[in-house]
């Protein structure tokens, strides 16, 4: 009985119906199809499914490897800087390097990328300088200046809110018969946002050239995937909207490249949207403000350590004799030097510009804001800030 205790027993109640039992199955059924699961490398870096192995030249494989290492090194540096008070709250990408680099690798520079906040490595691949990303995450508005070299949307911090915008870009591409595609990513948590489902549907209805990448990393802050979704196979969302979907081992960069290449080709070829579910794991903190010990077991994290995307790819590259321990050490050193150089440039650039806060809100400041700006500049002057 409801605590509200509705008067369901009053006299004029609708008549209780005779119970109906339906035990048998109907004759006709509709097949919902199957979702392919793509994986090229196993956890030891051995090729398990050569049928989907991308055929890439050595130099490209090494470029990819460097992208992943850069992602990790930069991440670690940011974390150290954050712990020393030099950086604001940010979301480490540790463990998701294959997911990140694998999704941007098959993109053309002229394609559009619309990432969430945990995509720092992918943003660097796409042309963001590291010093600028440091500015951004250290709270300097200049960090939001999007690199001119590529079509990037600002990363999104409001879960799922960028997905319809990315879809709209794809709709623009479609109606203008452009040959670009849009790639957007979001988390397993984001998959619960209604607007993401809406965007799936819009993309499908207009056959917009967009690839949705759901980075299913096990957690949304403290919420495990099992409590996030009634079906933990997030690729299964596709069929309801008529979107082909594939599931991929997100810690296998070659699998990611295979899956995302297929998805991007499909979209570019006029086939409409594609959904890629990348199964990976958030190895580190949700953000630097988070303490995962409160809600998840060390064992689980340990188990995923063995699936490290970088070690796995290293083994593969070693087995192909493209890498040895010396080369690995050297690459890491070079990249560390890049990262340090970026940090130093950031330190030079990190000057707050409080006087600018009115300047990008409208194309031209309306009169009423000119007054407010004057009031504000007075305040800055009093404080001796300007």
């Amino acid at each position: 009985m409801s605590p509200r205790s509705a008067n369901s027993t009053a006299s004029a109640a609708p008549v209780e119906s005779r119970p109906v039992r339906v035990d048998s199955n109907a004759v006709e059924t509709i097949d919902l199809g199957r979702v392919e699961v793509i994986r090229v490398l196993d956890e030891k870096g051995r090729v398990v499914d050569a049928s989907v192995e991308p055929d890439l030249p050595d130099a490209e494989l090494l470029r990819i490897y460097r992208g992943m290492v850069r992602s990790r090194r930069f991440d670690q540096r940011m974390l150290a800087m954050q712990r020393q008070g030099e950086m604001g709250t940010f979301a480490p990408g540790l463990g998701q390097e294959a997911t990140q680099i694998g999704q941007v690798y098959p993109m053309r520079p002229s394609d559009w990328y619309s990432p969430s906040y945990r995509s720092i490595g992918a943003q660097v691949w796409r042309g963001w300088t590291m010093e600028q990303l440091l500015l951004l995450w250290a709270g300097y508005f200049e960090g939001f200046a999007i690199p001119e070299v590529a079509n990037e949307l600002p990363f999104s911090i409001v879960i799922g809110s960028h997905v319809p915008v990315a879809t709209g870009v794809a709709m623009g591409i479609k109606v203008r018969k452009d040959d670009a595609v849009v790639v957007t990513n979001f988390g397993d948590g984001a998959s619960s946002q209604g607007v993401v489902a809406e965007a799936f549907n819009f993309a499908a209805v207009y056959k917009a050239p967009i690839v949705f990448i759901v980075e299913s990393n096990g957690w949304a802050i403290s919420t495990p995937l099992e409590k996030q979704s009634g079906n933990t196979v997030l690729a299964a969302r596709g069929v309801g909207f008529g979107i082909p979907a594939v599931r991929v081992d997100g810690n296998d960069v070659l699998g990611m490249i295979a899956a995302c290449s297929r998805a991007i080709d499909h979209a570019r070829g006029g086939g409409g949207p594609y959904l890629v579910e990348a199964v990976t794991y958030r190895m580190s903190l949700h953000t630097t403000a988070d303490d995962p010990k409160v809600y998840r077991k060390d064992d689980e994290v340990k188990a995923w350590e063995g699936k490290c995307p970088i070690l796995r790819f290293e083994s593969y590259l070693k087995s192909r004799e493209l890498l040895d321990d010396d080369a690995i050490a050297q690459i890491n050193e070079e990249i560390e030097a890049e990262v340090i150089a970026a940090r130093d440039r950031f330190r030079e650039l990190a000057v707050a510009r409080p006087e600018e806060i009115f300047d990008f809100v409208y194309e031209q400041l309306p009169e009423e804001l000119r007054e407010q700006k004057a009031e504000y500049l007075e305040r800055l002057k009093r404080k001796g800030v300007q």
Partner: protein
Amino acid sequence: MPQLTMVEALNLALGESMAADDRVCIMGEDVGVNGGVFRVTKGLLERFGADRVLDTPLAEDSIIGTAVGMAVYGLKPVAEIQFSGFTMQAFDQIEQNMARLRNRSRSRYPISMVMRAPYGGGIRAVEHHSESREAYWAHTPGLKVVIPSGPRNARALLAASIADPDPVVFYEPKAVYRAFREEVSESPETMEIGKAQIVRPGGDVTLIGYGAMMRPVLEAADDLVEEHGIDVEVIDLLSIKPMDTETLVESVSRTGRCVVVHEGPRMCGIAAEIIARLNEHAFEYLLAPIRRVTGFDIHFPYFQVEKHYLPDSDSIVVAVKETMQWT
């Protein structure tokens, strides 16, 4: 010069803007084949094709979200929300992307788009179909908010809103949609956003309104002038945000008395803002408290009684007379 209803005038502005700039496109529920539930977009699909007139699935949040994306891509979408009550469904995309993406991208992506929606009461509509919540958008940084009051300014302001480099919320008083006709010039006409209009000059008291309320406002003014010998100055706000403080202040500095009229709820409504600005900039000239004749802070009532909820000329007359008598 043709005599048009507001619906026809809006349709004209849309067609002209689309013809002049091939980046302008239209989207929304039932805007294409059906020509819009109020027929504002009638004939545009036939004229401009399905790549520029997009019938969308039934999801306001994504209508705005994808329109923002199209603006990012460089198009100029005019998105229709079927009734302003359903802009609530799109609140997050309006506030987080439409109003912010220029700033969030440090001006890399200006969001030159319009969200059109019929608003307000008076047409015997069901629940959620009569809201007047323009104050939400006035309170939202990054937007402009425009509300026409008749066919002619509707056409000119819609053209201006589409041309504007910033995102504009364009609220159409649906009670006026077919209420009367007005001469509308044959050549494209535009109007500056951000300017109020003194539609009747006067010296005794300033009466401020906008949108559908301009009809009872003007009715009241006639009555006050003719029956009560009160020389009312009437201002049509037209642009809610930015608001033309200068014109308001100049008028009230002359008259010393003021009444503000709107349909929307009173608390933190447009009238509150007008009063705050007049208090700041015309304080020394005020001879009486500024009165609000507005919607009440309750839900828009069900339609058999809506006429009593909506400010009418009688209530405005009473408020103006009381303001005149205040000492």
